[in-house]
């Protein structure tokens, strides 16, 4: 272990944070001299809703002298527990919210870039005035329609109102479709089951397929992991994991299918082949509720298990066994699918073919199957807004649809923008500025081109808690309070309560630390400054609410609830209206063939794709391995980190290193996992620093040689790299915690239909020559 004396330690941190909170209460500023002022006051409790991965697991925070001193879960919470009377917990990244709240590496003051190019600290009033001034100048010089709203996972819903309706930009890039699981979400919508074709009704299931998902280590709320374990214990459910790598979910599975990457579409068709041929499908459902079955039947007929076995590297008997098991357990059989099958060039067909299996066995909205989850109806902005304003982006067409420069991209028929195309749009002067919130697009695809694009933009506004690749390059930096310092409201759908709509909310557990503000206050501050500068009354729209809590109470008015009521009892959630299964009605149609969806049919024709399920091989729309780049790379998630939000936290870094049995090394970045055969050919051993290179970029990281890796296939955790929220460390250990931004390997590979970043990249790996 390296010497780390003199750095700020957790013990010191608790002392200084306590001092800071006290000083702030007196209107003073942080002295931070570390004198003995450890929290000694009364211990109180408060609630929170975890926003690390935005899935709202309930938090119980223990607060002393304005400092969060312990954090745990909320029992019975819909996302953070296994359901009624079960304990709520927090996963490692959720626990890190404690460290994040008091992290001295946070951005503590607003900053504005001077004309000479240096960022200087300013007070909030100046920050808001300068933001308004520069937004007005930008609109005059470039047009507000060239300003990109890249805000993500906000704890308030008014971002869209500010940037689209009031400022007037139609350019919006969100996390979901562009960098997460576009094909999964969009095919689900078009086929008739919505984007919730990803989260089955675990607890009632007897057969669960984790398809390209490591549910036990990468979940959308802990209820997923808990639900799977419950189903195994309570129902004796069969768990099947389809994953090239061996994961903890594979470890707990009855069947692990170590599939050749990007061949999921062939496996899904082969399963359909078995189910149709053996007449195991739900004839009544197919007859009454589906469209395009003949086209599906023909596609499936062309993929017998033996052929799929060749393509997928799997065993034909296992394919038959799993197909039969799934169909026989149906409708109590669910497929959990998300990013793993979506983040590939042929991800569209993979998810279409997989989603089709649900229609085939008729598990739709039936217990244990594909649940059509419902949201509670909180009031929309339009409903709570008592003032008129002119939505300015309503009739503006996004550049991707408007200009001929993009006519070769089929995605323009489906989406208004695609993550990978932003650098090109900056070159074309169609995007000239960006507001980025709680996100780092420099880690989400073609990193080098994005860095150049950010540097070329006329105006970059960063609303963030950390100095990262965007905030370090920004013209305006607005330091955001983190989740435990904010009032929050979550209106979830999927959860441990399959028959209830539900809601969760909490008041801020502690005051905003240092000179930071919650995002609601930052946006309303900008709006007020814009009202002042433009003399346009539309910008006064938020003045009807004195606080975020007041606004949340208006949102809750449709449910006859207040935030105070949600927050003041034993829990911070409410179960609302009950709803039954099979609520889709007689007229419901599940589409196997999407030829009736004209936007898709047009995009598919341009992409050379059929509208019905079909098999599309890897490389058709993305990389193929070659002699020069013989390995296939893709990035994976870790239970320790969430999208760059908490990569700076030492506890997570250290436990991540321990999990990988490399904690004795100074290195604290992400790891490259490769199979012993691939390692031996290259003279690589565990703990070696290696260089990974694609045709468009390269980077260094530490290798782990393991049988868990599939031969020919290498992986690493995403969210690290030189644009991280760290890079300031003085010792080797802290500096190395940046790891490698795996998207420096990426060019512009994408799913042609949704523009989803294709993260499968042809690479080679060599020893880096370091130790």
């Amino acid at each position, binding site marked *: 272990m390296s010497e780390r004396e003199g750095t700020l330690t957790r013990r010191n941190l608790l002392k200084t944070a306590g001092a800071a909170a006290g000083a702030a209460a007196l209107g003073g500023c942080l002295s931070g001299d570390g004198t003995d002022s450890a929290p000694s006051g009364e211990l109180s409790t408060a609630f929170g809703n975890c926003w690390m991965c935005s899935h709202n697991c309930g938090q119980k925070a223990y607060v002393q002298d304005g400092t969060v001193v312990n954090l745990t879960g909320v029992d019975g919470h819909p996302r953070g527990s296994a359901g009624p009377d079960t304990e709520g*917990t*927090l996963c490692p990244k959720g626990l890190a919210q404690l460290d994040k709240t008091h992290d001295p590496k946070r951005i503590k003051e607003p900053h504005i870039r001077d004309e000479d190019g240096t960022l200087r600290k300013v007070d909030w009033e100046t920050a808001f005035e300068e933001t308004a001034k520069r937004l007005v100048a930008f609109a005059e010089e470039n047009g507000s329609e060239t300003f990109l709203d890249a805000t993500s996972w906000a704890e308030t819903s008014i971002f869209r109102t500010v940037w689209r309706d009031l400022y007037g930009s139609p350019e919006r890039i969100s996390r979901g479709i562009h960098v997460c699981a576009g094909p999964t979400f969009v095919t689900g919508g078009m086929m008739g089951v919505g984007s919730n074709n990803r989260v089955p009704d675990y607890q009632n299931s007897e057969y669960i397929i984790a398809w390209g998902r490591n549910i036990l280590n990468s979940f959308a709320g802990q209820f997923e992991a808990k639900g799977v374990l419950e189903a195994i214990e309570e129902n004796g459910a069969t768990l099947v994991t389809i994953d090239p790598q061996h994961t903890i979910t594979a*470890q707990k599975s009855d069947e692990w299918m170590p599939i*050749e990457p990007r061949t999921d579409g062939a496996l899904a068709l082969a399963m359909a082949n078995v189910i149709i041929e053996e007449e195991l499908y739900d004839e009544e459902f197919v007859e009454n509720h589906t469209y395009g079955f003949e086209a599906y039947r023909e596609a499936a007929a062309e993929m017998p298990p033996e052929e799929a076995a060749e393509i997928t590297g799997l065993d034909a008997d296992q394919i038959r066994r799993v197909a039969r098991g799934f169909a026989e357990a149906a409708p109590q059989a669910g497929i959990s699918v998300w990013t793993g099958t979506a983040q590939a060039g042929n991800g569209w067909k993979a998810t279409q073919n997989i989603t089709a299996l649900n229609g085939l066995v008729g598990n739709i909205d039936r217990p244990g199957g594909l649940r059509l989850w419902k949201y509670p109806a909180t009031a929309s902005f339009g409903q709570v807004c008592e003032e008129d304003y002119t939505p300015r982006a309503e009739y503006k067409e996004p550049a991707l649809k408007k200009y001929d420069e993009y006519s070769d991209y089929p995605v323009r028929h489906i989406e208004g923008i695609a993550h990978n195309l932003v650098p090109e749009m900056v070159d074309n002067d169609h995007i000239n500025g960006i507001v980025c919130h709680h996100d780092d697009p420099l880690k989400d695809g073609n990193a080098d081109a994005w860095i150049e694009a950010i540097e070329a933009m006329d105006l970059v506004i960063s609303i963030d808690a950390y100095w990262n690749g965007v905030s370090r390059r920004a013209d305006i930096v607005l330091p955001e309070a983190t989740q435990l310092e904010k009032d929050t409201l979550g209106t979830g759908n999927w959860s441990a309560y399959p028959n209830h709509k539900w809601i969760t909310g909490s008041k801020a557990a502690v005051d905003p630390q240092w000179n930071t503000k919650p995002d609601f206050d930052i946006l309303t501050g900008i709006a007020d400054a814009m009202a002042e500068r433009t003399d346009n009354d539309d910008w006064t729209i938020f003045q009807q609410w004195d606080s975020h809590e007041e606004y949340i109470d208006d949102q809750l008015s449709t449910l006859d609830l207040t935030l105070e009521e949600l927050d003041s009892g034993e829990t911070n959630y409410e179960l609302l209206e009950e709803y039954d299964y099979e609520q889709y009605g007689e007229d419901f149609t599940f589409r196997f063939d999407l030829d009736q969806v004209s936007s898709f049919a047009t995009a598919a024709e341009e992409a050379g794709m059929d509208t019905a399920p079909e098999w599309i091989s890897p490389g058709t729309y993305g990389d193929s391995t070659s002699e020069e780049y013989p390995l296939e790379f893709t990035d994976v998630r870790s239970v320790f980190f969430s999208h760059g939000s908490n990569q700076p936290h030492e506890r997570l870094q250290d436990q991540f290193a321990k*999990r990988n049995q490399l904690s004795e090394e100074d290195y604290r970045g992400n790891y490259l996992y490769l*199979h012993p*055969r691939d390692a031996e050919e290259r003279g690589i051993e565990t703990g070696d620093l290696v260089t990974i290179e694609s045709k468009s970029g390269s980077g260094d990281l530490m290798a782990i040689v393991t*049988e868990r890796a*599939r*031969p020919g296939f290498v992986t690493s955790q995403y969210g690290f790299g030189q644009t991280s929220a760290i890079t300031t460390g003085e010792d080797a250990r802290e500096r190395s915690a940046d790891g490698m931004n795996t998207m420096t390997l990426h060019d512009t590979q994408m799913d042609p239909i949704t523009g989803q970043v294709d993260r499968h990249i042809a690479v080679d790996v060599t020893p880096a020559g370091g130790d």
Partner: protein
Amino acid sequence: MADRQDHWVFYFDPNRCIGCHACSISCKQFHGRDSDADDWRTVTHHEKGTHPASEEYDADTSSPIENVPISMSCMHCHDAPCEEVCPTEAIVKRDSDGIVTIDQDKCIGCKYCGWACPFGAPTYGDNGLMSKCNMCLDQGPGSGAGAESKNEQDNPIQPNCVSDCVGGAIKAGPEKEMVKEASQAAAERFKSNNERVIVEPFQGEENLDMVEHAATPDNAGD
């Protein structure tokens, strides 16, 4: 002396452990311990087997991959070897609830306890004094030595690792309650394995003896 059945023990089910390390992180947070201080609760990962897509894989003879996480801490042994060797009687196996505590005011940092413990649970901080899990009797190294018995508290606080275990793999409580929650196989092994920690049999390819495997100075207690 309280009945042995009232002594608190840990229960661990490797089949429910998802290897996420929330237990270690929550322990560190609760006790205000630096990230790079030793872990009082340690998660280790035990891997064997061959990837089925490997050229070397032989479906008839090779095992598939096993990659099993194990979470362990001080087991608060009923025979507490650490207590027996402590020259200053700083270590106490409490009669009331069976929790083994260290009074750092009496500890002289001789490290005999570290040598005596078969699991490597006692470790030593910057001050050279012994520290280890106190089942969250109180917060911080060396705390809890004089704390009220868990059995006399109205609603005894669960150790933080238990409260934050995502998979519900770790439990703690009086032995009589923990044995009731355990499978017969786990209870029998507990009886025959010196009654230190209740561990459910691992439902894997081979029934690895998890306790023996995990509980070596290399793997336990960091």
